[in-house]
């Protein structure tokens, strides 16, 4: 999955496979091409249109998530929905504005029925009905009002700080573990001779083909027997060996010439020293790929931690978010805020290193 593979250009006069030669471009050809290009120009607009429709479909859910996360609970209920969160303000006296909720609008009479929002600091909720008043439309002004408070509120309604910590903690350990165990095992598979090496390797690879739901029940029982259920170990230990990483590293280690190994050994380098000082520094690109897909995989994993944890002390972010979503029910603005701050770290990282991340995740899928 290398990008930027050099594209072989076959210009005029180039020899095509089969020994045929392309004709040099004559002036007649150019004229024909002009008409062709005009038609293609129209096609090109269509191409851009199709691509952009797709782009909009990809982006809209994210925009909608952010937009919702910044609205007031009242604005959520407005249909048709607003894209830019808007607050309504009523002019009480000259240059004195208070925020109000719009209860209803009477287009014909030009009046608006509003309720004052008691206090900006008060928790979200529908204000008392007695505040309702009908005023002239001109006294109400709409301004963009982004309710960042939703994020604080969502954060505080569930132990998200703990969930965040758990996910980061688990991810760090899994990444470190995968790096250590995979490098060692890949080194053994690539460089050492021992009985049954290739059979063991094939056996490892075949394990990779078995989908997680198939072995999750026995895994649960094993973790119960080991006393690991509802501990960090349940989320870390089973995942610190990653077969695909071993495979990737082994393939890469095999490309490093044997002469290098011989030379290093003659110079008095130990086996481990060769791995540490020569092999790993030469495998930086592969190691980065391993780190990336391990982070993304651990951060986003759901079924495993859902089954293996049941207290907030060890519960990772995704499971916490799912619980929050099921508990909240109708507070869509809080749910969207929680969704937004849960995906934020990976999205930010993605924008800084999208090329590496795309490449790493595309590789991680290429199992078969």
């Amino acid at each position, binding site marked *: 999955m*290398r990008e930027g*593979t050099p594209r072989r*250009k*076959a210009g005029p006069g*180039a020899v*095509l*496979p089969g020994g045929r030669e*392309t004709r040099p471009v004559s002036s007649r050809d150019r004229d024909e091409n002009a008409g062709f290009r005009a038609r293609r120009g129209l*096609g*090109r607009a269509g*191409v*851009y249109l*199709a*691509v952009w429709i*797709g782009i909009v479909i*990809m*982006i*809209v*859910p994210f925009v*909608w*998530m952010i937009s919702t996360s910044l609205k007031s609970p009242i604005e959520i209920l407005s*249909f048709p*929905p607003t894209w830019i969160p808007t607050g309504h303000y009523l002019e009480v006296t000259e240059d004195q504005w208070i925020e109000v909720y719009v209860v209803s609008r009477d287009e014909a009479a030009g009046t608006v029925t509003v309720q004052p929002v008691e206090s900006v600091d008060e928790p979200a909720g529908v204000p008392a009905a007695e505040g309702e008043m009908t005023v002239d439309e001109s006294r109400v002004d709409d301004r963009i009002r982004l309710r960042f408070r939703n994020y604080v509120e969502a954060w505080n309604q569930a132990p998200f700080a703990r969930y965040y910590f758990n996910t980061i903690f688990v991810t760090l350990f899994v990444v470190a573990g995968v790096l250590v*165990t995979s490098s060692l*095992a890949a080194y*053994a598979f690539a460089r050492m*001779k*021992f009985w049954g090496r290739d059979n063991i390797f094939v056996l*490892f690879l075949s394990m990779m083909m078995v989908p*997680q*739901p*198939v072995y999750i*029940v*026995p895994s*649960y*029982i*094993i973790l119960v027997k080991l006393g690991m259920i509802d501990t960090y170990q349940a989320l870390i*230990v*089973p995942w*610190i*060996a990653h077969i695909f990483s071993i495979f990737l590293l082994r393939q890469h280690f095999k490309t490093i010439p044997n002469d290098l190994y011989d030379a290093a050994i*003659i110079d*008095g380098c130990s086996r481990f020293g060769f791995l540490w000082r020569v092999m790993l520094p030469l495998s930086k690109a592969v190691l980065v790929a391993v780190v990336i897909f391990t982070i993304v995989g651990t951060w*986003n994993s*759901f*079924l495993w931690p859902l089954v293996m944890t049941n207290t907030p002390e060890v519960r990772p972010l*995704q499971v916490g978010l*799912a619980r929050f*979503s*099921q508990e909240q029910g109708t507070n869509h603005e809080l749910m969207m805020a929680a*969704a937004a701050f*849960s995906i934020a770290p990976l*999205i930010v990282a*993605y924008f800084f290193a*999208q090329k590496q*991340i*795309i490449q790493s995740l595309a590789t991680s*899928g*290429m199992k*078969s």
Partner: protein
Amino acid sequence: MTWLDRLKRKKAMDPVTAALYLVPAGVIVVVFRMVPIASAFILSFFDVKMGRIRGFVGLAQYGRLFQDPTFWSSLGTTSYYVLGVVPISLFLSLFIAVLLNQKLKGLGFYRTVYFLPVVTSLVAVSMVWKWIFHPRLGLLNYFLSLLGGGSLQWLEEPRGIFEMMAGGLGWSWWPDGLAGPSLALVAVIVVSIWRGMGYNIVIFLAGLQNIPDQYYEAARIDGANNRQVFWKVTWPLLSPTTFYVLLSTTIVSFQVFTQIYLMTGPPVGGPMGTTKVIVYYLFEKGFDAGGNMGYASAVALILFMIILSLTLLQRRIVERRVYY
């Protein structure tokens, strides 16, 4: 000791050293992969409740499983899901990839955006889409109203889409067996396609860029039009990539869980059980209702058999047509 001795010694077979290097990964793989996979097979013949083995029951659990209508309907639902996701996702991502491969300006940007959902957690994605599908306040019904359509119940609609279409045409009667996947399941299918497309696009793009330009130019010189170029050059040369995407999308689709768990219900699998897929059925049996883990293992084994045989079948059928 001369350098030659040292070299000989280091190159000789050394099972002990090799074992030391293999132990850390090996122990984990054996304890948390091999043993569980083997036990899934064995456990399906035992009565296991809440993690305790109560006794050998032979094939009794398979017997009960095959008599459970919920099991069959969950298989049906999963098939609908796979048949919905795989072809559409394949078609759309190939379509977009071919468009993006025409040396568009800003390819990097387009690719980044299409890939964005892949990096986003499925939990968050499901929450956002559930809100988009909201029957009263959702964005999708708003768009429908802009287009002059009526609002739909989306995730709360148990009726099959073919039945609904027939209803839309004014037919009052439609055979039950042909109702098709519920609109709720279709909504989940849409989300899965949206989320997985970027990945397939990236794979297709890589495949397309591996096709040498000469073939295209040769075809053009021979007077081939766009359609001919696609079917005679791109499609056959891309077939290994297409085959890979087909296989991996199918395998992943069979294991759908998170979207169902977060978007449907309550209770999960609703409305009227029309979105209860096989992995959720497994989860429910094994971890929710009384923890009948032997039974869940039987389900797991059936799932494994299905995925395995589909993989082999696809390999068989497609292999002959794949141009290498």
